[in-house]
């Protein structure tokens, strides 16, 4: 059963999307647990976001920024009330995050296929520094249509970056366009260590983040777009970047309350 905290996060996302008229809700709902697992399991300090021993989290699929903001607010990085300005003219909380505006965000992302290369560079930097710091980056399955994802994977394997974990949000976005069948086999054939987990199982994700590995690890996180709301799961293409009206909002909240997943 979905824990109350994850229902709360989803409700916040729905509410902020309704207020702002922005947000990619289905894709936000697929990565909530993967983001939350990072902030629960890894080293970071909301009181000191630039702590020099912190681990690094990068949301390469930057259009799920609202999910990151809401999760970070749960960990004390900022007040959820501030996130309600999401996407408005002078807000620091854009629909894609700007690291220079949002405290604790490590990289400005948005254009797909960029965050993973940055993550490789950061992981390499920690290796040169002989530091124990780790990097977790979430990429989308649709994002993985980009050739730069595979370049970065090859480089990370070549450099044996065992301090880098790539979470592949397997939410079936790819199905509509360039399909990536058997992603685990593909990453394995590129030389990465691969595990497949339920991407909504926060404990499984935490344990994979903390597990040691010999080279780059790719965590195939099987997820559902719109997870928690039947309406969205059934119609996620329609909901790709829609915000709910008042009536839809009530229906979606009810679905979340009644969900049995």
């Amino acid at each position, binding site marked *: 059963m979905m824990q109350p905290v994850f229902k709360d996060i989803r409700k916040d996302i729905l509410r902020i999307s309704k207020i702002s008229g922005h947000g990619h809700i289905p894709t936000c709902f697929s990565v909530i647990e993967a983001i939350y697992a990072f902030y629960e399991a890894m080293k970071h300090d909301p009181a000191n976001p630039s702590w020099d021993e912190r681990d690094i989290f990068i949301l390469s699929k930057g259009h799920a920024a609202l999910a990151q903001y809401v999760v970070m607010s749960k960990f004390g990085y900022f007040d959820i009330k501030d996130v309600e300005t999401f996407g408005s003219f002078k807000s620091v909380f854009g629909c894609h995050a700007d*690291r*220079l505006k949002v405290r604790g965000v*490590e*990289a*400005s992302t*948005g*254009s797909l*296929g*960029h965050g*993973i*290369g*940055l*993550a*490789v*560079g*950061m*992981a*390499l*930097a*920690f290796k*040169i*520094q002989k530091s124990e710091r780790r990097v977790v980056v979430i990429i989308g399955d649709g994002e993985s249509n980009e*050739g*730069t994802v595979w*370049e*970065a994977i*090859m*480089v990370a394997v*070549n*450099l044996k970056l065992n301090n880098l974990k790539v979470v592949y949000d397997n939410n079936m976005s790819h199905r509509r366009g360039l399909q990536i069948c058997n992603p685990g086999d593909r990453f394995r054939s590129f030389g990465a260590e691969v595990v497949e987990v339920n991407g909504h199982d926060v404990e499984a994700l935490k344990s994979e983040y903390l597990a040691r590995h010999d080279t780059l690890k790719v965590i195939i996180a099987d997820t559902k777009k719109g997870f928690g709301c039947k309406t969205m799961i059934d119609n996620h293409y329609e909901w790709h970047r829609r915000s709910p009206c008042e009536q839809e909002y009530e229906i979606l909240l009810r679905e979340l309350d009644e969900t049995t997943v």
Partner: protein
Amino acid sequence: MRRQFKDTVMGLSAGDDKLVMVLGDVSVYLFKEFQDKYPDRFYNMGICENTLISVSAGLASQGFYPFVHTINPFLTERSYEQIKLDMCYNRFGGNIVTCGASFDYAWDGATHQSYTDLAILRMLPDVEVIQPGSRKELDVLLRSQYDNGKVTYYRLSDKPHTIDLPVKFGRAEILKDCSGKVTVMTAGPILGNVFEACKDLQVNLVYFHTIKPIDKEIIEKFRNTDIVIIHDAFGLFEAVCETAGLSATYYGLPKDRFCDTYGTFEAIREDIGLDVISIKEMLRKKLL
């Protein structure tokens, strides 16, 4: 000039353990000395220019000074979005050093030529754009800018000019001020030909190695003359013309077509009118 690049980097790295080389399978043998001495900070990452830039940005985010290097068009045109977003927008500075421009690889044809780099990179916020024309210029400008946290672009050519000039980042040099009614402005290695062509002519001559920030003070000095920008690339003309109200024309690359011949670099210069005789002829007409 690439040898100078290596020599300067070797000199800098002796006192700076934050300097990291990121190569795209180019100049690898040249940097063997660096690789042997600093194996932890030498990466021939392969032929993946987009990722070279992203990885360099990631290194910069953790306090390193990356030097990312490969052939010009592949690093600048192919990876423009990585430079724009991963380096510039994220403010993860680093040193982008390319080789081959404009026509060093003449015989390889249009795929390996590059003349848009200066123009497109100068449009990105807060980037420093440098076209060293000589080994000395490269040495001085690398040393002065490499660790300032900004994105700094260095466009190298293996056909440097040999004129010895004072070098300071952001400052142009007046090579000739004869109160002529025509002022020639140029940048980079083509100075060799331009200098020779201007020798016996009643024209002023101004030289730039820094395209951004452009030295507006010197441009102002020649505001009341006819300015002719002679350059084997785009970018200098646009930078000069940021100063409003000038009478400025461009002489260099052909309009709206590829330089799709092969042969030698001198042959291409001659073909497009950037040899000494053609430049001189053009200026003579201008002076009539």
